[in-house]
């Protein structure tokens, strides 16, 4: 099994620290979700993990080899970034076809037949200039590059941004199809968490430049409870448990609990216990603490 490992990654821009001594291990053959708030450092992390951006400190290794400027390691990695078509980037004049041609020359295992198939599946016109595409269509181009790169570790930054609900569903089915056929490893960052939750085997939560949590998605969701009731009852039922994001209105209180192995909500209290979805867990972990 291959492993991509980040050790003590730190990235600073001037006096701003974006990543702070971050450690992360990604194993091959999984679909990972990278979630975090705006500015949490997701894109910076993905760009460092793919040699597109140097770390200020720390290193990234693939099966023990440092990936920095290492062609052999880079042939196994693909980070299909969100396309920036501003005037300075010079990309807006490229046609879809020429952009894909450039990508093809960059990726060692490029699959042109797959690129052609996705271009037609997404209804993209090869001759159209990138500058004329909508945000959703640009996402389709980046998804096409990511899939056709056939890279063993493929990173997708906000692949569904701007896509309509039908295209988003299409993307997740495509991702699963490619994953089940090839066993490639995917890291997908997204803000539309609930739609992606069932597809992600493991979720990595990034907060303020650190990994807040990395866990099997279903296990995390199964361990979460939302407990509500009279404040004293809720406090009693959740005493000693891993509580997050308490919210109170008058005498009532609600709190998100992440149960550790073997734990349960304490019995004997008059409270309502409900399941919590991944999106709510994320808010409980990364949202601003409400004053109670």
């Amino acid at each position: 099994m291959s492993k991509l490992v980040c050790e003590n990654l730190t990235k600073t821009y001037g006096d701003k620290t974006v990543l702070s001594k971050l450690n992360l291990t990604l194993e091959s053959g999984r679909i990972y979700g990278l979630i975090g708030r705006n500015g949490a450092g997701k894109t910076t992390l993905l760009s460092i993990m793919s040699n597109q951006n140097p770390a200020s400190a720390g290193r990234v290794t693939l099966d023990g080899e440092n990936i920095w400027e290492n062609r052999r390691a880079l042939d196994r990695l693909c980070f299909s970034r969100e396309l920036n078509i501003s005037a300075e980037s010079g990309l807006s004049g490229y046609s879809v076809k020429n952009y894909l041609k450039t990508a093809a020359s960059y990726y060692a295992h490029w699959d042109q037949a797959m690129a052609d198939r996705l271009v037609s599946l997404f209804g993209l016109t090869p001759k159209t200039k990138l500058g004329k595409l909508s945000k959703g269509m640009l996402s389709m181009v980046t998804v096409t590059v990511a899939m056709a790169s056939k890279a063993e570790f493929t990173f997708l930054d906000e692949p569904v941004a701007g896509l309509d609900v039908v295209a988003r569903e299409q993307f997740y089915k495509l991702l699963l199809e490619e994953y089940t056929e090839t066993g490639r490893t995917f890291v997908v960052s997204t803000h539309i968490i609930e739609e992606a939750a069932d597809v992600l085997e493991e979720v990595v939560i990034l907060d303020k430049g650190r990994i807040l949590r990395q866990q099997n998605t279903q296990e995390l969701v199964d361990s979460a409870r939302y407990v509500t009731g009279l404040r004293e009852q809720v406090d009693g039922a959740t005493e000693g448990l891993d509580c997050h994001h308490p919210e109170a209105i008058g005498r009532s209180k609600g709190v998100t609990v992440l149960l550790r192995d073997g734990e349960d909500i304490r019995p004997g209290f008059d409270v309502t216990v409900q399941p919590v979805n991944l999106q709510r867990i994320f808010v409980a972990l990364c949202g601003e603490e409400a004053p109670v």
Partner: protein
Amino acid sequence: MNQRLTEDKSIYLQISQMIETDILRGILLEEERVPSTNELAKLYTINPATAAKGINLLVDAGILYKKRGIGMFVAAGAAEKIRSRRKQAFYEVRLSELLAEAQSLGITKEELIEQIQKEGRQK
């Protein structure tokens, strides 16, 4: 297999329960192949590992069995097994919930029995 997934319960449990329900309804027949984890993953847009967990639950319960290199099949007697297990769960879980709610509403045992008989006559 065409039910929708909800957020109230673990996905793998829903997968195993949907397959069970399909066996009870005769949508999946005994000794017939069930969809593979990859097929289920694509159908429901879920991770194949989650689908596999649901399938394995049914293998452990003796409801599905594996034919090497071919896939998962519905075991003989699976429907009866599911029915008796659900019956037990009905008595142990649903009935006790019903009785607890009845008690908190002050419904007496006699009133409850009378209601059940009345419902039964209408059916």
